[in-house]
């Protein structure tokens, strides 16, 4: 590990959608029915597991700096800083910007208690879908209720997009983050681009 830190390996990294960056830009639809797609690459992601009410849960909650969410859909923290998403009653995903290094302090906080702190940074990439038609694009292939009355800004759910299991995180009224596993990223991006294409034309009544 030490040798790797001495060489700047960050220049050698490729993100799951790096090869599609031009295609993603070209797929953007402008205007009233606009929608666009971009990858937020290389986020730091840490899987956390601890039973609510346990010492491990309390220790990890304090160590994240933003606590842990307590119910389905909840996200604590902010999307630009550290955020923790609820994945299950005792399972959470911490997402932080590239370069954040909360891993060792979380491991230290957990200590010998029963729980998990796992670096999952390379597991999922983040696709941001935004624009007035973003929800309409997602609704084509996501079975969850994405209406604002049940899917609020600052919440995230585990669901599917077409056949792909994803985390879906609503960060703004017209902005969604989709987190597919890295191996599904290419498919998911092309799937979304395909869903976006119709919004470049006038609607047919």
């Amino acid at each position, binding site marked *: 590990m030490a040798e790797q830190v001495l060489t700047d390996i960050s220049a050698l990294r490729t993100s799951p959608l790096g090869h599609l960056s031009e295609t993603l830009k070209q797929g953007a639809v402008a205007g009233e029915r606009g929608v666009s797609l971009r990858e937020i690459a290389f986020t730091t992601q840490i899987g956390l597991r601890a039973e609510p009410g346990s010492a491990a849960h309390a220790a990890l909650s304090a160590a994240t700096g933003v606590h842990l969410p307590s119910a389905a859909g909840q996200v604590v923290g902010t999307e630009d800083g550290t955020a923790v998403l609820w994945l299950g009653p005792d399972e959470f995903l911490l997402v932080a910007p590239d370069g954040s290094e909360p891993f060792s302090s979380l491991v230290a906080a957990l200590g010998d208690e029963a729980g998990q702190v796992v670096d999952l940074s390379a597991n999922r990439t983040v696709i941001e879908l935004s624009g007035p038609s973003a929800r309409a694009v997602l609704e084509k292939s996501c079975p969850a209720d994405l209406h604002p009355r049940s899917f609020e800004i600052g919440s995230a*759910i*585990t*669901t*599917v997009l077409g056949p792909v*299991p994803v985390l879906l995180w609503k960060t703004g009224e017209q902005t969604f983050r989709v987190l597919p596993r890295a191996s599904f990223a290419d498919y998911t991006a092309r799937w979304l681009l395909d869903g976006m294409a119709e919004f470049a034309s006038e609607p047919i009544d």
Partner: protein
Amino acid sequence: MMLIECPWCGPRNETEYGYGGQAHVAYPEDPSTLNDNEWAKFLFYRTNPKGLFAERWVHSAGCRRWFNAVRDTVTYEFKAVYKPGEPQPITTTNAPAQGGTK
């Protein structure tokens, strides 16, 4: 399309779930004492009632947790869902055996 209530996530589309068969099948006290017939019965023999049935479901595309449900096999209607370890809210013909709440 049908909505199934996950005890943790709330109502979600049935496509997010997997079916786990009959609930509350108690694991044998001492599996090594079972003969082949008894072992086969534990593994494969399940009741198939017409009406209320307690069964296991997993929210595989969501929180990935297993839970129990009471479903009417005639109407497909879910009468209740409950977390593992919680008491069965509605009596069925395959009601939990003594102490068996898995």
